[in-house]
């Protein structure tokens, strides 16, 4: 479903991704682990289409199409969703207004009919309830004054409303306490389906107890250094990233 071949990318003139290969078949959840600076977040931004990330070589094919040729909003319409590590705060935009604009923009681009107001509200209400999101929170400006957990739950709400085919979770576990982690993980697991694949980026194994991956890849110096089953995450938890060029751990 997602096929990344020999991906090289630069940020500010520095090469961060250095020949990365990764294939995720439909229905599978793959985890990317690795030390700080190994290129995990860069990979997520390159896939979502952020401007300052320059792809110098390689290809990314999504459902047979050249993902790198698409604008960020076209990628969203094509089903790519990035749950941000640090969701943006936008004062002056009510969360509900934002959700509705996003959902309708994506539906329009997919050739689907836009939601009517009552239908949209009903859908949001249902999904928000599962994520224990108060409707009052959705009337507030987007992410402004939200706690870390609220922001991440809001990301998962957006993910479930936009019905993506590729879910990229960038350090979704960072800043979450154990209860919030469970709510967020349940929300993600509920979206697992044979038509959907997921890329879960995390520094720690903890998240993978809740979202159990089909495959685990260890990223080092901008490429996949090792791949394995879920047991690889447990092994890393014990040994650390010392073998993968993390100087902090090695020292």
């Amino acid at each position, binding site marked *: 479903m997602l096929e990344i071949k020999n991906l090289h990318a630069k940020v500010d003139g520095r090469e961060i991704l250095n020949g990365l290969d990764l294939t995720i078949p439909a229905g599978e959840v793959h985890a990317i682990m690795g030390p700080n600076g190994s290129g995990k977040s860069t990979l997520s931004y390159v896939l*979502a*289409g*952020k*401007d300052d990330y320059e792809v110098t070589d390689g290809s990314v094919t999504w459902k047979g199409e050249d993902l790198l040729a698409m*604008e*960020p*909003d076209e*990628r*969203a*319409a094509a089903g790519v*969703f*990035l749950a*941000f590590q640090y*969701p*943006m705060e*936008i*004062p*002056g*935009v009510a969360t509900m*207004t*934002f959700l*509705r*604009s*996003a*959902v309708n*923009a*994506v539906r329009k*681009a997919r050739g689907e009919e836009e939601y009517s107001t009552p239908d949209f509200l009903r859908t949001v209400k249902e999904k928000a309830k599962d994520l224990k999101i108060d409707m009052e929170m959705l009337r507030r*400006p987007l992410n402004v004054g939200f706690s870390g957990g609220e922001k991440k739950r809001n990301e998962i709400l*957006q993910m479930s409303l*936009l019905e993506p085919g590729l879910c990229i979770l960038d350090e979704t576990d960072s800043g979450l306490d154990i209860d919030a982690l469970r709510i967020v993980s349940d929300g993600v697991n509920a979206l697992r389906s044979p038509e959907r694949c997921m890329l879960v980026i995390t520094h720690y194994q903890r998240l993978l107890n809740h979202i159990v991956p089909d495959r685990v890849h260890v990223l080092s110096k901008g490429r996949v250094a090792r791949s394995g089953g879920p047991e690889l995450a447990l092994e890393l938890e014990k040994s650390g990233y010392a073998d993968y060029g993390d100087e902090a751990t090695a020292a």
Partner: protein
Amino acid sequence: MDLSVQQFRSEAEQALLDLYERSVDALPGDASVAALRQSAIWTYAGLGLPHRRVEAWKYTDLRAAIAEIPPLLAESDAPVEDTAFEAALGKAFAQLPAYRVVLVAGAVRTELSDVQGLRDAGVEFGALAQMLESPPEWLMASLDTASACGDDVLIALNTALMTGGVALRLPEGVTLQKPIHLIHLDGADAPGSVYTRNVLVTEDGASATVLESFGTLGRAGVQRNAVTTVSLGAKSAIHHIKLQREALETIHLNAWVANVGADARYNAFQVSMGAALARNQVSVRFVGKDAATDISGATLARGKQHCDTTLVVEHDVPACESRELFKLVLDDEARGVFQGKIVVARDAQKTDGKQMSQALLLSETAEFDSKPELEIYADDVVCGHGATSGQIDEDLLFYLRARGLPEAQARALLIQAFVGETFEALDDEAIGDAFAAVSADWLGAPAE
């Protein structure tokens, strides 16, 4: 007229004197009003049109901007269709529930106005032109308020040439349930000048929301000079709101002058999006203790539009609070000016004054000039000011686009959000929504 006061006069400066000479006999008012006019035109003759070496007009050279002086626009009784209101003000403002008063060339169009409703609600209402023929004492006092603005040429010209407008007085304790909407609609096939003066007075404990909107009727823009004086009695409140959406040929000169009594609140809110050149002055003077003012608003400008907002707050007495927040969205070669002066007199201890102006520059060639001026003669005060200018945050833009919003829509949403923060100063939700709608129109995006 004696030309000796000023050495050099531009053609337009001379033409203004000629316009006064030609029109003076037909201008409304009794002998006391005529004396005010005479004194005001002398003030103007001595100063001429302000230019960039006049500090208060540093960034807006009116003498350079005005090349011609068109004749005073004649009153008209031509019908005004509902669609004309929508075209001029936008649907939301055209349909806003309010006591509506429509002014064309300064004259009240009673058939389009709800004067009876105002009077039933307890408001003293009169067309200025008629009231000037035998002005009551409170009206003369208000006209004097403006005359007291000494060397303000904009106001002096208005006093000399005012032909219309309205006078509104709220007797003690009267509170209106609906806003008063003064609609200034002007325009003609040929250029014209319009000088209007509105007078608002709230007696002790009275309160009202007064919305003034400015739009263009027909094709050509006008040279507009509109002044409103406001007198607030003790414990009274006025929310004074303005929408300026005039045609691009318009020169829009506007001054609000408010005297605020003890425990009173004067809130001014202005959104400017039209006219080639706009100068918006708001001067607030505290004359009683424990009063407050909030002056805020937004400017939306593109092309070669020039929009100047100049505020003066005079803390003459102790324990008053002033808040200022203006946001400017400037595209193409537009130029936005914000000048904010806060004067704290020696006796005005416990003054609390804050000022902020923020510009969002959408192009490399847009320009924002900000000039705060704090003159503080008291020692126990809290006063602060700030100004920022910046571009659209690329990270926010990416976030929205990653959620599927096409670039243009994402940009519009961010600009709306930037401007929308000022709308929070409005208590009235319907008016806030109406501003959101007209600013969305301006951005070319559908309103949510």
